[in-house]
Each structure stands twice: as structure tokens, then as C-alpha cells.
């Protein structure tokens, strides 16, 4: 169990070493250091997991105290870790996928000017994420929550000398702040109602049915928590930052915007299941927001040309699925999809990164094509990720998506229908991507792209396969994407994830979803048919590259939502902000501050005259002070 400390300590140690000694450690070594820290953290997670396995289901919750953080009055917040099936499941996949992405980055970021800074941020990010999932209280989780937000800002804007990267980082940060606001309000409500932040104190009695929660309170807390999740997990209406965040280096996109940070919202909702149980309204909101986001993002993904933006919208869409599952009351399905999605989406991002790397930072799919011959390892792994994402059996995307859609059907057939259409669209846009990138004719020029890029390095020449540190994670992830479904297969007693998470979601708060076996078969076959349809359509339609009819401007521009929001919110806000900065800030605030400063220094100058350096004057000062005190006590005499 003490390995739990290792999980937390290693990444932060790595980050600190890199922060202070990164420049001296130098180029490849700092990457390896970070990777070893991440890997060690994963090993620690495995050890903790194994020792939890050795316990019976009921007492698989262990608290590990680090130190008391806030002892103020009745508020007592510890820096403590809660090891339970949910947090261990999270930390296993966070550190596992995280380690692979660290490894991949060693190759991808080679030659970058700020190599150590990148790994410092990666390690710090991993630490924050681990804190987020292992914390034993909402407040401590919030520390990690803000930590990942900050690291995301640093990593998206990693190449901050590019205007677009700096803007995207700012956008990601600001949008996340809106969600954080919701989280904070939830914290306040929670403290007002429960007087505590710790999971055991807030959730324990609810989960075991020893106490109840008024519906309105549950709705308030639940909605605010979900607002936090919406910000972090890029759901409607706070999803715009994620596609822009693709300005960051590709491993960042894979780590933060596919595998870990965006799943924080999914984790938060799952963790709060006992609260949500008391409010059906919130569950409906979650399900509807999830389904709508899934559909909307999938439509937008159909018309994007940037290889990473397609994947970004796909991520938003898949996160929508996860919330659809959770909103339908099937947290396990949502979490299982989160795990499988981490595998195949990280795989797709890393493979895309490998493509971008090979083409010297070309990201436009219209300028790719015919790459299958040149990238013999990346290609098959990408195809595995593609099939998994498209929901083709037996790859793991099929199984987790299927579980979610079954639950959605139980909630409402309309939600199922939205999910099914989304599945077809997913298969379609991924096929489009495969057709544009890997199949057809080469549309790139072999000598074209010098001078592009933050990681520099290669001149012209033909595209070439990436070094082993980049391909090895691809192979491992491809393996996981192929066989990951065995973690939770719905037959033969192979539903390990269900069994593992059962203590976290007891039947008191999470009644089992009953969908008949026959219905399941019908639904599964129907969805699979839709997926194959999308697959075929995509592959045939995109043999040609120019198909303006299939790329309507409204989709290219993402339904103009971003523009509309910019016009409606950002514009006036910016104007208001500049008005404030010129009028209020410069005159009133700065005026007050500067005035105070002038007053202070002026007072100091005047007071300085008393400091003459003459002992007689000092003695006089003491005498006057004594007289003042004596005069004061004289007024108290007799009282």
C-alpha cells in the first residue's frame, strides 16, 4: 500500500529535478528521466492494484494520510490519498498511457529548444492528474484539477512564439476557468450542506443509504459539478477550446486531450455518483448534453482537413458518449469507454504525430495520401485505432460503445438513436481520414517542407518511419486497442471492470441496467450495421480528394458556433475588458495603488525626520511614548 506514495512522489520529483536541473541534464536524458518517473509511477500503481486485489471487495478502500493541509475551525482538510477501485482504475490507465506518451515524446520532441521544459510540464501534468484521481477529498482533487489546467496551458502554448499557440492556450485556460467556477460553487454548496469535502464524509453515507439528500441540493451540487466536468471534458457549450488546443505538440494532444485531462470530468461525475443518484434531473442533463455533444462534434469532424482537428472533434464526440453512458446511470460503461478510448485515441494521436513527423510538420490531410508504403509500422497501428474508434468488432471500441448504447436505450430510445447515428458518422469521418492520409495518391512533395516546425530536424527526402521510441508505444497501444475489450467483455464472466468497480457503485445508488439479451443483440447488430455503412461510404466517397459537396462550409466552420460565441461573448467581453483596463484599472485601481504608494513613501519621508540619529531625540521619543501610555492609563484609573 505504501507504493501509493511512490505513485505521487515520482512524477513530482521528476518535475522538480527537471525544473531546477533540466538545462544541465540536457536533451535525451531529461526525457528519459521523466519517462522513468512516469514508468515508476505506473509500477507503483500496479503494486497498489495488486495489493487491493488481495482484499475482499468491501474493504478495498484505503486512506493514506500525507499531512494535514487546512486545520481551520471545523474545516479539516488533509493531503491524503484514497485508494479504492475507482481511483486505482483511473491511476492505472493514467500512468500507463502517460508513460507510453512520455516515451514517445523522447523521439518526437528531439531537438526542440525547450526539451527539458516540455518534460518538466509533462511530469508535472502527470502529478496533477494523479493527485486529481487519488485525492481523498473534493478540495484536494481540485488542487490537481487546477494543476492539470495550468499544465495544459503550459503545454498547449508550448511553442508560445507562435501566435496561434499562445491564443489557443489562453482560450483553453479561460474556457476551463468557466468550468472551474462551477466546481468551486459546487465545493461551496457542499461545504454548506455537508460541512466537509472528503469523499468518505460526503459520499460515504449517501452511497450506503444511511442518509438522504434533498433533491434540490443534489441538483444544485450535481449541476455545478457537471459544469466543472463540461469545462474540463470539452462538452457543449465549453468544447471550443479543445480543437484549438491541437496547437500544442502532438504528444500533448494525445496525453491531455485524449487520454487523461479530458477524462477528469468523466471521473468527477463517476465519483459523484452518490450525489447524482438523488437528482434525476441532473442525470438527464448529463445524458442529453453528452448525446448532443457526441452528434454535433461528429458532424463537424466530417469536414475538417487538419489531421489532428479531426481527432480532436472525434475526442469531443467520444467524451459525449462517456457522459451519455454516465447520464444513463451506467457509470461502469462510461468509465470502460474512457479506458478503451484512452487506448485507441492515444494510439491515433501518436500515429498522427508520427505522420506529421514524417512529413515535416504537415498537418493538412489534403496534402497527404499514399503514405501506407512509407510508414510500415504506423500504418497498421493507425488502422487498428481506426477500426476500434469506428466501433468495428472485435476491437475494443465496439464493446464499450455497445455497452453505452444499451444503457442509453434503457434511458430513452431517442438517446440511443442519437448515439447510433453518431457511431455511423464516426465510422464515416475516420474512413475519410484513412482514405485521405494513407490511401490514394501521394499529394506531398518530397522536398517541400523545410523550415517548418518547432522540432526542426529533418530536411527533405521521402517520408520515413519514426524511431523506435515512437513506434514502440504505437505497437503497445495497438495491442491494447485490439485486446482491451477483454477487460470487460459482456460474456463468459470476463466483465472484470464491472466486478472491480462494483464496490464503488453499490446497487443502492446505481441500480443495474436491465436490457434483455435479445434486445442487446438486436441493438448491437443494428449499430454495427450502421458503422459498416459509414465505413463503406467514407472509403468509397473519398477516393477523390475534392468533394466540396461533402464539406459544406457550415461544417467546416463547426456550425459557426465558435464564431457566434466569439461575436456574442468574446467581442463585448474584450471591449468591456479594455474599457475597464483603460478607465477603471488605469484611473481608479492604479490611481488608488499609486496614490497609496505615493502616500506611503511620502509618509516614510516625513517619518524619517524623526530618525535624526541623535540619542537625545530618541530618548525624547521614548519619553513621549511613555507619556502617551501613562496618559492613556490615567484615563482608565478607577475603572
Amino acid at each position: 500500500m505504501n507504493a501509493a506514495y511512490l505513485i505521487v512522489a515520482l512524477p513530482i520529483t521528476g518535475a522538480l529535478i527537471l525544473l531546477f536541473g533540466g538545462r544541465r541534464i540536457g536533451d535525451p536524458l531529461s526525457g528519459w528521466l521523466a519517462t522513468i518517473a512516469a514508468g515508476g509511477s505506473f509500477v507503483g500503481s500496479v503494486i497498489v492494484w495488486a495489493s487491493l486485489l488481495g482484499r475482499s471487495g468491501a474493504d478495498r478502500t484505503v486512506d493514506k494520510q500525507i499531512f494535514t493541509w487546512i486545520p481551520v475551525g471545523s474545516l479539516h482538510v488533509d493531503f491524503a490519498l484514497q485508494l479504492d477501485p475507482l481511483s486505482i482504475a483511473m491511476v492505472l490507465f493514467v500512468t500507463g498511457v502517460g508513460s507510453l506518451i512520455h516515451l514517445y515524446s523522447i523521439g518526437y520532441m528531439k531537438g526542440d529548444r525547450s526539451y527539458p521544459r516540455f518534460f518538466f510540464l509533462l511530469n508535472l501534468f502527470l502529478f496533477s492528474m494523479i493527485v486529481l484521481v487519488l485525492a481523498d477529498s473534493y478540495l484536494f482533487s481540485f488542487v490537481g484539477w487546477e494543476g492539470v489546467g495550468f499544465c495544459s496551458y503550459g503545454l498547449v502554448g508550448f511553442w508560445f512564439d507562435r501566435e496561434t499557440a499562445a491564443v489557443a492556450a489562453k482560450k483553453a485556460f479561460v474556457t476551463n476557468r468557466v468550468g472551474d467556477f462551477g466546481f468551486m460553487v459546487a465545493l461551496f454548496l457542499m461545504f454548506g450542506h455537508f460541512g466537509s469535502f472528503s469523499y468518505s464524509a460526503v459520499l460515504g453515507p449517501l452511497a450506503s443509504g444511511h442518509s438522504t439528500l434533498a433533491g434540490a441540493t443534489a441538483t444544485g451540487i450535481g449541476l455545478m459539478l457537471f459544469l466543472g466536468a463540461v469545462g474540463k471534458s470539452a462538452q457543449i457549450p465549453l468544447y471550443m477550446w479543445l480543437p484549438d488546443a491541437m496547437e500544442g505538440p502532438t504528444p500533448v494532444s494525445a496525453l491531455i486531450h485524449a487520454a487523461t485531462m479530458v477524462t477528469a470530468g468523466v471521473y468527477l461525475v463517476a465519483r459523484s455518483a452518490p450525489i447524482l443518484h438523488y437528482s434525476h434531473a441532473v442525470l438527464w442533463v448529463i445524458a442529453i448534453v453528452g448525446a448532443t455533444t457526441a452528434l454535433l462534434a461528429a458532424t463537424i469532424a466530417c469536414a475538417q482537413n487538419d489531421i489532428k482537428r479531426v481527432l480532436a472533434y472525434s475526442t469531443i464526440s467520444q467524451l459525449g458518449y462517456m457522459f451519455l453512458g454516465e447520464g444513463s446511470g451506467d457509470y461502469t460503461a462510461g468509465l470502460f469507454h474512457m479506458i478503451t478510448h484512452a487506448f485507441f485515441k492515444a494510439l491515433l494521436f501518436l500515429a498522427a504525430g508520427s505522420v506529421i513527423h514524417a512529413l515535416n510538420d504537415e498537418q493538412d490531410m489534403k496534402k497527404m495520401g499514399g503514405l501506407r508504403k512509407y510508414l510500415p509500422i504506423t500504418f497498421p497501428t493507425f488502422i487498428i485505432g481506426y477500426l476500434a474508434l469506428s466501433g468495428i468488432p472485435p476491437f475494443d471500441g465496439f464493446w464499450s460503445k455497445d455497452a453505452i448504447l444499451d444503457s442509453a436505450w434503457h434511458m430513452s430510445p431517442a438517446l440511443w438513436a442519437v448515439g447510433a447515428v453518431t457511431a455511423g458518422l464516426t465510422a464515416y469521418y475516420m474512413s475519410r481520414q484513412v482514405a485521405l492520409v494513407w490511401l490514394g495518391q501521394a499529394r506531398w512533395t518530397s522536398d517541400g517542407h523545410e523550415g517548418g516546425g518547432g522540432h526542426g530536424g529533418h530536411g527533405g527526402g521521402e517520408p520515413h518511419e519514426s524511431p523506435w521510441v515512437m513506434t514502440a508505444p504505437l505497437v503497445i497501444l495497438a495491442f491494447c486497442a485490439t485486446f482491451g475489450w477483454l477487460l470487460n467483455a459482456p460474456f463468459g464472466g470476463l466483465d472484470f471492470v464491472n466486478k472491480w468497480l462494483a464496490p464503488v457503485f453499490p446497487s443502492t445508488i446505481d441500480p443495474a441496467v436491465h436490457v434483455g439479451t435479445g434486445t442487446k443483440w438486436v441493438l448491437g447488430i443494428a449499430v454495427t450495421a450502421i458503422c459498416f455503412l459509414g465505413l463503406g461510404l467514407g472509403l468509397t466517397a473519398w477516393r477523390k480528394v475534392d468533394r466540396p459537396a461533402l464539406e459544406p462550409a457550415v461544417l467546416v466552420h463547426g456550425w459557426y458556433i465558435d464564431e457566434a460565441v466569439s461575436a456574442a461573448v468574446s467581442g463585448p467581453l474584450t471591449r468591456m475588458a479594455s474599457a475597464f483596463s483603460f478607465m477603471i484599472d488605469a484611473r481608479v485601481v492604479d490611481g488608488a495603488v499609486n496614490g497609496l504608494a505615493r502616500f506611503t513613501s511620502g509618509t516614510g519621508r516625513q517619518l524619517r525626520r524623526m530618525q535624526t540619529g541623535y540619542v537625545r531625540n530618541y530618548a525624547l521619543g521614548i519619553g513621549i511614548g511613555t507619556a502617551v501610555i501613562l496618559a492613556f492609563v490615567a484615563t482608565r484609573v478607577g475603572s
Partner: protein
Amino acid sequence: MIGLLADVVGRVSDQATTSTTTIPVPCSISSGGAKITSVCSDTNSLHISVAYRSILPVLVLVIGALALLAISAVLPKRSRPGLYALLTVAIGGLALIASVWQWSDIGNINAHVPAGAQAALNYRLAHQLTIGQQVFYDRFSVLFMALVSVATILGAMTTDSYLRREGLDGVEAYVLMLMAGTGAMLMAASAGLIMLFLGLEIMSISLYVMAAYHRRRTQSGEAGLKYFVLGAFSSAIFLYGVALVYGATGSTQFLEMANFLGANSLSHNGILLAGMALLIVGLGFKVAAVPFHFWTPDVYQGSPTPFAGYMAAVAKAAGFAGLLRVLDMGLSTQQANWRPAIWLMAVLTLLVGSVMAIAQRDLKRMLAYSSISQAGYVLVGLQAASSTGTAGALFYLFTYTFIIMGTFAIISIIQGRGEARNDLGAVRGLAKRRPLLAAVLLVFLLAQAGVPFTTGFLAKFYVIQAAVQSGQYVLAIIAMLSAAIAAFFYLRVALLMYGTEGEAVAGAPGVSGGAGVSGGAGAGDGSILAGLQPIPSLDGATATATLLDPPAVDEKVRLPVAVALGICAAFTIAAGLSSPMIDFARHATTLFNLK
């Protein structure tokens, strides 16, 4: 020696007793109607039993000082540089061990308190009021003994290289330091005004000499003389206060004073209040509370730098120990009268300290005002007159020891031979020249500014919390505002350390305006204030632009100094994260609840 002192004191009180045979004064302690009899048999005889355990660290320091003198007499002059420092560190270490032992010993005593109010009181008085009832053996005393021991260790480590650089190496510095520590410990442990005064004088006289220790610097001699004259002045006021309080209550013992005042209501309390006011003045001088602070900048500036750190840590702590003993124990019934006075002093101290520090160009003067401002926070804790406030004050004093001694140690490094450069410009570009040293100084500056994750933050937090709990919202707000003002000059030093040359040049246009001001205001300055020029404006860049270039001095950090700095910085950060120190401080307030 201490036994002898206590013996003398005991005899004096015996004579008082024998003259009025009908009323045995020292035996009149009562609490809630419970009379004490068991301790009286001791004091009525001429023999005073000396419980050595209660003054163990004091004995270590005194014997150590004597041993140092003896050794120096035997050894040839300048036989082995650093030997005395090493021995002083060892003595301080022994004293620290002794105080740690005392802490657990008191734990044993507390564990065996018998049931029943009267029995418990008798037991406590028998075990914790020792040596002719002159010394308290409680955790409050022990905490200060540990504090002084730590300060002595750190002081010896940082003094050595300074003295060698200045060619002042000798045994006297360490003996003086040990004796000052002795006095400070006795002040903290005093159970009556007489012992408090003895401790005060033992400490002060050593400190006067320490201030004047640098023979070749006229400023140092001037500092010593000023400190001595003003100190004598304040001691006289203090003694007058002792006399008045004795006249009003018939005792100089804190417990007896409290009992007397609790049991009787005075029809004329003028004498008592006047005495109280004068005691506050006398001790307020030692802690450099406004308006009794005038000596501080001159003395800190003139004193040898490591000694200034020692003074700031030890003299302040001892002064506050005395204030807490007098006000919170002896005059605890007079809270309504002394709390407003302390309130006013706290406000003045906080604001004057912070505001004046901004106007300083000399590092040591700036730190002097900074330490005045810090004393204001301790006064805030004292003013709360609650165990939370006292615990906060104790925590503040203990953690401040590390911060201020570390800061002065760094200044003694960067000022160069002969204390050539004490102005703010000396730290400019320090981060480039000595990144580690700059980082450590940054830790201390941030801690003094009260940045979270340092002890400075927790200390401010605890005292302000205590003020809020006792309903003193105005005081709490003033304390926070003062912290905001103070952050400016701490961060200015940080800016100078980490700023680049380019930034400094960029601010150059502001210079012309400032020069006129400094020329005009400079005339009012006294003889020794050459380093003191006003900063023309609060704009950081402008402020840096008018400074001289950094010195090209040899900033070698010797190992003992490095170790001392490491200890200080490590404690400041480690204890700032989440501090068991506050629990120690809370334990140290236990005797105050003896009701």
C-alpha cells in the same frame, strides 16, 4: 552562579518575610479559595533548594562561557581559527539537547498531576515553580530555551567567518553571545519581576558590547553607545514600573500578583496602572515596538551583521517572553487596561515599521524596520490575550529566529570586507553571481513577506486568526494591509537580485526626479545615516536604476555558514508546509491556563 543569584534573591524575600512575621507573604498563593501550604516550608528557611533541572540549558550556557574563557586563557592567542565557534556550537547543541530533555521531563511531570484542584495546584507549584519560586519550569520557558539555543548555534556558525574576515576573531564574541543567551533564557523562565529584570540586564549588557564589537568601525561604537544609553534609560523606566507594581500588589511574583489582583479589587488602581505602563515601555523597548523603536535602525546598522541577526532574534524573543509573562500572567486581570495600549502599539509598530522600511536604501536599516514591523505581528498575537494568540506569538518568534538570522547571515556575506556595501545595490544581479545564495535569500524574503508555504505565512496567519477570534477585526485588517505594504520592499530586493542589467538601465529616466528629492531630504539626516536616501518613487525599475553597481567583493560562503543557511531555509520551508511547530507552541501556553 545562578544558584547563588537565586540564593541572594531568596534571602531578600526572606528578609521581607521575617519582618512581617504574621503574614507569610510567599505563602499567600491561593487559587479559587484553595490555599497552598506545601511550598511554604522551603522558602521560609534560609536554604533554597535548587532544582537544577529547571535551568539546565542556562547552566550549560554559563558553564560553557566560563569554559571558553578558561580555554582561551590557556591557549596561545589565535591558536586555531574557528575553535571557539565550534565550541560555541557544541555548547548551544548541548543546551538544545538539555531543553529537549526538559520538554519531555515536563511531559512526565504533567502526566502525574494528581486529581483534585488543590492537589494538582500544589503538585504543579512544587514541581514547576522552582529555585525559591523565582523560576518557572514550564514549556513556555523551555520553548524559549530551545529558541535561544538554536539562535546561539546559528549565531556561532554565521559569526565565525564574519569575524575572521573583519580580523576580529576572538573568544569574547562567543562568550558575549552565550551570556546574552543566558539572560534571554532567564527572562523567559522568570517567575517574578526581579528575575525578569536580572535576565534583562544580563542579556542587555552583553548585547551593548556586541553592538560595539567592531572596533575599527565608528558606526559600531556609536551603535553600542546609543544602545547602551537608551537601554539604560528604558531599564530605569522598567525598574520604576517594577517598584510601582510591587507597591500596588505587594509582590513581584507573577502568580502572587495575579492572585492578589484576582482576590481584591483596588479602590485606587492608579499606581498599578502606571507601573503596568512603565513595564510595557521597558519591555517594549527591547522588542522594538513603536514608539520605543528609535534605537533599532541605528543599532542594527552599526552592529556587526551576524550580531544584528542575533539581537533581532534573541532580544526580541526574550522581550516578548517578558511581556507575555507580565501581561498574560501577572496582570491577566488587567486585560481591559493593557489590551488597548498594546493594540495601539501594535498598529503603530506594524505601520511605522512597514512604511519606514520602504524609504530605506540600506539593507540593514531596511531589515531593522522590517523586524520592527514583524514585532507588530507578535504584538497582534499578544493583544488577543488568548491561548491561540499566545501560541501564534510563540510560533512567530520561533520561526522568525530562523528567518532573520539567515537573512543577516546572507547580508554579512554579500556586504564584503569592512561592511563595505550595505546598500540595496549590493544584491543586484546576485542571482547571476550566486544563484543558490540568491535562492536562499529569496526564501527568507518571501517568508518575511508572508508568502504561503513558508513559516512566515503560517505565523502571520495564526496571529491574525487569533485577532479575528478575539473580535479585533480592525487590527486584523491593519495587520494584513501592513503585510501588503511590507511585501513591496521584500519583493524589491528579490527584483534586484533577479533583475537584469537591462531593466535597470531602462528605468533610468526616473533618476533625475528622484535625485532632487534625496538631495533635499538628505539634509535632515544624522551623522551616521550616509546609506539612507529616500527612494524617489515606488516604481521598481526606477528604484533600481539609482543604485550603484554591485560590488566586486569575494562572496565566499564558508561551510558553517552554508550549513546554517541550509538549516534556516529548510526549516522555513519545511515547517511552513504544515507545521508541528504550532503544536509545540500550543503546548507551551499550558501554564497560562492554570486556573
